[in-house]
């Protein structure tokens, strides 16, 4: 198995944020993890990256257990997260931001080459090379964040809400780029709130609701599944349950 999570549980003090999640990513796939706010999507990614400690469960990557490893070891193995809300370094220039992405790569020539590659992918970044990251617009920052992720030669890329706060036209551009990245052989675990978009691009998808996976299947299946909408907007079935009073003591 290329990448697998088994029964992942995460607590933040008293909050049970993830209640036993299991999912797999195959080599070369795009897998979407969708769900409403507070469903636990980012917690999942942060547990994979090792930013969240104290979880239980097993995460394996290329037949190796990576649970509990420090973040830099996980990054070294080629699992690279592009965090939600971009989180570019605001006072570093665009170029320095990209260099930070290649922090673990000591081969200078290759870093140059990678940077050239990123500039080709995002010509806008070349123009703004010497500008501090904080002065870029939202869409540009997202591109920079993805570019920075690419600088680390990801084998498995974790994308956390790349569409958040972007205009639809930009979202489509970003998703095209994600698709292209996947075409070059990088596996992608995509966390999204924008379900339609994510499922359109994904090979498979999982739907998270309050820390649990409620549905999974191929992108197409999920697109037509009424449960997906229910998970977001509180569909009929849930409504009925409430009216029947099952949820009350």
């Amino acid at each position, binding site marked *: 198995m290329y990448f697998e999570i088994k029964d992942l549980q995460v607590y933040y003090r*008293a*909050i049970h944020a993830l209640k036993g999640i299991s999912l797999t990513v195959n080599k070369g796939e795009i897998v979407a993890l969708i769900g409403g706010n507070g469903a636990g999507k980012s917690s999942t990614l942060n547990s994979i990256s090792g930013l969240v400690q104290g979880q239980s469960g097993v995460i394996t990557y290329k037949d190796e257990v990576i649970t509990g490893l420090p973040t830099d070891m996980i990054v070294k193995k080629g699992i690279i997260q592009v965090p939600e809300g971009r989180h570019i370094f605001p006072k570093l220039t665009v170029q320095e931001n990209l260099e930070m992405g290649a922090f673990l790569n000591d081969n200078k020539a290759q870093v140059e080459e990678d940077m050239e590659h990123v500039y080709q992918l995002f010509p806008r970044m070349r123009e703004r090379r010497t500008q501090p990251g904080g002065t870029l617009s939202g869409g540009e920052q997202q591109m920079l964040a993805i570019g920075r992720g690419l600088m680390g030669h990801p084998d498995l890329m974790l994308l956390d809400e790349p569409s958040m706060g972007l205009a639809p036209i930009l979202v*489509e551009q970003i998703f095209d780029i994600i*698709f292209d990245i996947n075409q070059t052989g990088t596996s992608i675990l995509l966390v999204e709130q924008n379900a339609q*978009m994510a499922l359109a*691009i994904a090979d498979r998808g999982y739907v998270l609701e309050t820390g649990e996976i409620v549905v999974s299947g191929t992108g197409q299946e999920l697109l037509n599944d009424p449960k997906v909408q229910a998970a*977001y907007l509180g569909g009929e079935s849930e*409504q009925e349950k409430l009216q029947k009073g099952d*949820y009350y*003591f």
Partner: protein
Amino acid sequence: MTKKPSYVLEAENITINFGGLTAVNDVSLQVPFESIISIIGPNGAGKTTFFNCISGFYACDNGTVFFQERPINGIPTDEIANLGISRTYQNIRLFTNMSVIENVLIGQQPRLRSTCIDTLFQTFRNRREEKQSIQKACNLLDFVGLGAYADDVANNLPYGAQRRLEIARALGNNPHLLLLDEPCAGMNPHETSAMIELINTLRSQLKITIVLIEHDMKVVMNISDSILVLDHGEKIAQGTPDEIQSNQKVIEAYLGSGTENLVEKYSRRKADKGNLD
């Protein structure tokens, strides 16, 4: 006798910027007496920012907030609490090393008058007030169902109880308006339904007006009189739960839009990829 104002809270054209980014853009909201209004929207829609503006954490760049027809822009948070607006927090913020009842006592701060001089000389006023406030705190704890925990340290409470304690604390200053920020986040269905019940009682028995942010649609659809939907800092819809559930704009905001051609585009490209292999 003064005329009763028509709304508890009126927010007019609120705009809040953060260094170039517009977090809330031209949002208006009227909150009638004894109503429950929900604010929903995807991540980063500006819901909590809007809340923070009402409770005085941020000053808005444009627009006015009226509380019972009185503008409250730029007033420090403690004075806003004095006026009768209380709130709870997204990620529970209790005074963790203090006991449960002490937390509730802090909530009564704006209603107490005794000073440290009173305390030092143990005046009559101090004695009476201390006794009354402790009694009231116990009543409040009993009301939210935490009577048995009164002397425990707040940090040791289970999660759901911590959320209830936040509400009890917020009730201490006899609020006209209660702002609840994700009261049901991270709760299991049982705790959630108990919370719904509590919120309903707050309105029906204690006559408190409530504005809440919530992601759990079961809660929102079940208890709200009216729902305000924010997306990218803008108000995209407001209406009753039924209206919102069938509102196309809302569905798009949550699920994304215009995907027909996209699905086609990507599946075609996927097929191409397959051919290449």
